[in-house]
């Protein structure tokens, strides 16, 4: 018997901060324009080079370098919409990306899982994506399902299986495929069309979107660009995500890294706007730092780089994938994970950004601890409380009650107390006690709660004919992949 999926809860903009002045943002944008004009980006896809060349960019065909004049960048970016909708299965799960709300997503895409039953670490598989989709469907703070791990049991068609596992196990918007081996992206578009019901509906309320990572510094991936062009043609939104690492693939200064990332992202968005003006794109820069002794990846930086990324996205007139997040570089669920999660959650309403949060993974977004999604969700809910907690009507001010009670008394016997004390959200995870009155370990409670949801929450299934059609699409994709269509 299906269970009702609760409404999604975005975070509003009451506590939004503003870090950079408009003039500072303009300086950054000018930096990007100069880099694209004077240095250019590496574009290893002939179709993309042709699009750039047709619209007046300077293309070095041998080197596959594209230099784009500032006017052309500005003209292309002018056609990108500031606001668009990411569709859910029902309209109540639609996300309107217009800056008013911050919608939270899962993290992705990891490659290992701490198994729910054996608690051993192993390679991820499609069943993990199914499990997480079902549990995340029950969590109201999660608005956007990014398959947190890879369906590694499916080789080259893994992205399509991740998309399938998401679409069939949650009513929420699904990140449907990242970079997909070239001819297979069409199958993801087909899946989106079947779930949406028609081409028109897919364009109006696309049930999936994609995220394409650029390659720092200043380069693109051929399959990534091909996927993005396929999706853009179908009206499916694409975010380009730059992941510059200060010290190795980017300068060791925060704004140097941001400007490298911005040039990559903007060049990707320009390509899509030149090919399909007005197609929905969004902007994402996730900056990290090279550990100077180990060369390791440190994403949890005490620098407001994600806030800059959000402000820069908005300065370019597009929504942002990014903002604060609860992901962590630490292994396991210890002190550092707590710090990264608590601090990341508290910044969510401050940084803003249309889609962010990144719940569920540890070790630099590589390893899934299933119960972490509940711990993360709990603190994201706390962040919502911070941003939405206060009301000032007469009943909330309670002046009559204070007068009636007077000094040196108590409020326990007041009907007003009985009525309102229930309004406070008592955390199931943080404020749970043992029968002896001791506090329970939240990580242990989270694991129990995860298992309970997994055992009991069954999202409304897609109609049988849609499910059959999706299976048919997957089979066809498998056949093409087996025939070598993925090169």
């Amino acid at each position, binding site marked *: 018997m299906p269970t009702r999926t609760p409404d999604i809860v975005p975070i509003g903009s009451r506590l939004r901060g*503003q870090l950079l002045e408009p003039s500072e943002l303009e300086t950054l944008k000018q930096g990007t324009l100069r880099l694209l004009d004077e240095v250019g980006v590496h574009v290893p896809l002939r179709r993309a080079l042709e699009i750039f060349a047709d619209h007046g960019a300077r293309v070095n065909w041998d080197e596959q*370098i594209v230099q784009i004049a500032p006017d052309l960048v500005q003209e292309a970016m002018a056609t990108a919409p500031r606001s668009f909708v990411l569709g859910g299965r029902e309209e109540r799960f639609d996300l309107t990306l217009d800056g008013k709300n911050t919608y939270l997503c899962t993290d992705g895409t990891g490659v290992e899982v701490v198994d729910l039953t054996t608690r051993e670490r192993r390679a991820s598989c499609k069943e993990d994506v199914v499990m997480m989709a079902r549990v995340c469907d029950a969590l109201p703070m999660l608005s956007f399902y990014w398959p947190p791990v890879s369906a590694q049991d499916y080789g080259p068609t893994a992205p399509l299986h991740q998309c399938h596992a998401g679409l069939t196990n949650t009513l929420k918007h699904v990140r449907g495929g990242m970079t997909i081996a070239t001819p297979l992206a069409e199958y993801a578009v087909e899946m989106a069309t079947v779930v949406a019901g028609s081409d028109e509906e897919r364009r109006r309320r696309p049930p999936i979107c994609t995220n394409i990572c650029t390659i720092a*510094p200043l*380069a693109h991936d051929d399959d990534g660009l091909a996927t993005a062009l396929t999706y853009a043609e179908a009206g499916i939104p694409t975010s380009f995500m730059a992941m510059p690492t200060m010290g190795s693939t980017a300068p060791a200064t925060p704004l140097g890294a941001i400007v490298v990332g911005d040039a990559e992202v903007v060049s990707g968005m320009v390509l899509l706007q030149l090919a399909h003006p007005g197609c929905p794109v969004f902007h994402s820069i996730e900056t990290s730092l090279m550990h100077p*002794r180990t060369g390791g990846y440190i994403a949890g930086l005490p620098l407001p780089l994600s806030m800059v990324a959000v402000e820069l996205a908005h300065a370019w007139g597009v929504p942002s994938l990014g903002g604060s997040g609860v992901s962590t570089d630490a292994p396991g669920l210890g*002190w550092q994970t*707590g710090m990264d999660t608590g601090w990341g959650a508290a910044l969510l309403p*401050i940084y803003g950004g249309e889609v962010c949060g990144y719940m569920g993974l540890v070790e630099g977004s590589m390893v899934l601890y299933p119960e972490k999604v509940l711990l993360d969700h709990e603190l994201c809910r706390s962040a919502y409380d911070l941003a939405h907690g206060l009301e000032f009507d007469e009943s909330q001010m309670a002046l009559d009650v204070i007068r009636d009670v007077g000094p040196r008394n108590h409020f326990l016997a007041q009907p*007003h107390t009985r009525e309102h004390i229930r309004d406070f959200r008592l955390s199931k995870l943080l404020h749970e006690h043992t029968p002896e009155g001791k506090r329970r370990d939240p990580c242990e409670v989270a694991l129990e709660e995860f298992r309970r949801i997994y055992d009991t929450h069954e999202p409304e299934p897609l109609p049988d004919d849609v499910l059959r059609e999706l299976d048919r699409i997957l089979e066809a994709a498998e056949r093409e992949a087996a025939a070598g269509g993925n090169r």
Partner: protein
Amino acid sequence: MPYSETPDLEPVVPSYRVQILSMEELERLKGATLEILEETGIHCPSPKALSIYAQHGAYVNRETKRVKLPPDVVQEAMSHAPRFYTMGARLTRFDLKLDGSAFYCATDGCGVETIDFATRERRSSIKDDVGKMARVADYLSSIGFYWPIVSAQDHAATAPLHELDASFNNTVKHVQTETVMDEPMARYAVEMAKVIAGDEETMQERPPLSSLVCTIAPLAQDKGGMESALVFAEAGLPVGFMSMANAGSTAPGTLAGTLVAADAEIVAAMVLIQMAYPGAPVYHSMMPGIMHPRTGGYLGTAWEGELMYAVGVELAHAWGVPTLAGIFGTDAQVPGWQQAAEAGSSFLLTALCGADTGSGMGLVESCTLLYPECLVLDTDIYHRVRIDLAGLETGSEELALDVIKHVGPRGHFLRESHTRDHVRKREFSDLAAQPQPDGSYRDPIEVARERTDWILENHQPKPLDDAQRAEFARILDAAERELGDR
């Protein structure tokens, strides 16, 4: 005696702010406070305080000990309270200039149990713990001033003075007491402050000691606490009032109602001080909790409750005084996921609201239990917030366009001199990402324990001079004779 330099303070200086309440909402809250003080009033069991209230226009019922304050009396008294002043320290470079630009933080207090430094067993706290943690706090640039972090329970009636003795002997920073709760004790504490300052004038210009007094929710004052506060104020030492009203039990079961009741307690106390000593430095401290509806327990870290800490900052400023904000603090029982997850949120938000001072670093179990390594753990979070809020430089060296051009697409930045110069300027956590020989990273809690031990072994702040120590011994001796430890 050889000693080590105390590192410079690194206060939080936010590059941007957020505002939770509109001016109109703040005025509504203030209006509600004025209404409660006028119509309901507060309970004041101190004859001395009642006389002061009565002499300055309040309606005082000496039988019921009820004081009602007309709005114009409150406003007039509060108009004398300074918005900005200096909290001094033993050495001038540790003076805290409360001028609205920087946020200075203190340890938590006043816990009653300690995880022993050597045996790691849980036991009652003692004076030696106060001294040891003062030394750790002295070393940490995160700590702007020191709250005696636990109680010197090996000293019975004069414990608060022994806490000050242990503090002043082990840190050159400003000390704020939260346990001196009667007039005779306060007179000894003021004497100690005078010994540190050297003379009365310096003590008033750069007071090395301040006091915090808790009100009693709802709407009541403690006799000893208020009389102690008057002694501090008379000496020119800053004194603040904290309400720990608990939504549902000692305050209404709503956030706005709790804010009003708590604000009324704090304002009534500040008004008394301004009536007695116009212009005396005071501060406002809003640290309410929420009652756990099933256990009756105190929930200090439900985030909607922490919203009250941040609104407290805005309210303090709306009344024209500095704030002592609630920061860090956890209901967790041990350092770990929950302790860290709960630590940073109130700190972040109160900093963004422009808090002047805050306290709460280093204890677990709702401010009652000291894990020695917790102060170092909280310091790591402190610096993370500090650096994040400090903003970014936007000069051309930072943008590095020439370096990017030189490297070009698909290159790397490892061998650029710009990288070498700047990677060293990035600030790294002292605890996280500490590599060990097998390539994995060490447990940050273990690193924090080692670091705490290292500080205790290696850091000895500039001691008091012999005359000051002799004077402290004389004061403690007199206090023990008068107040009953002997």
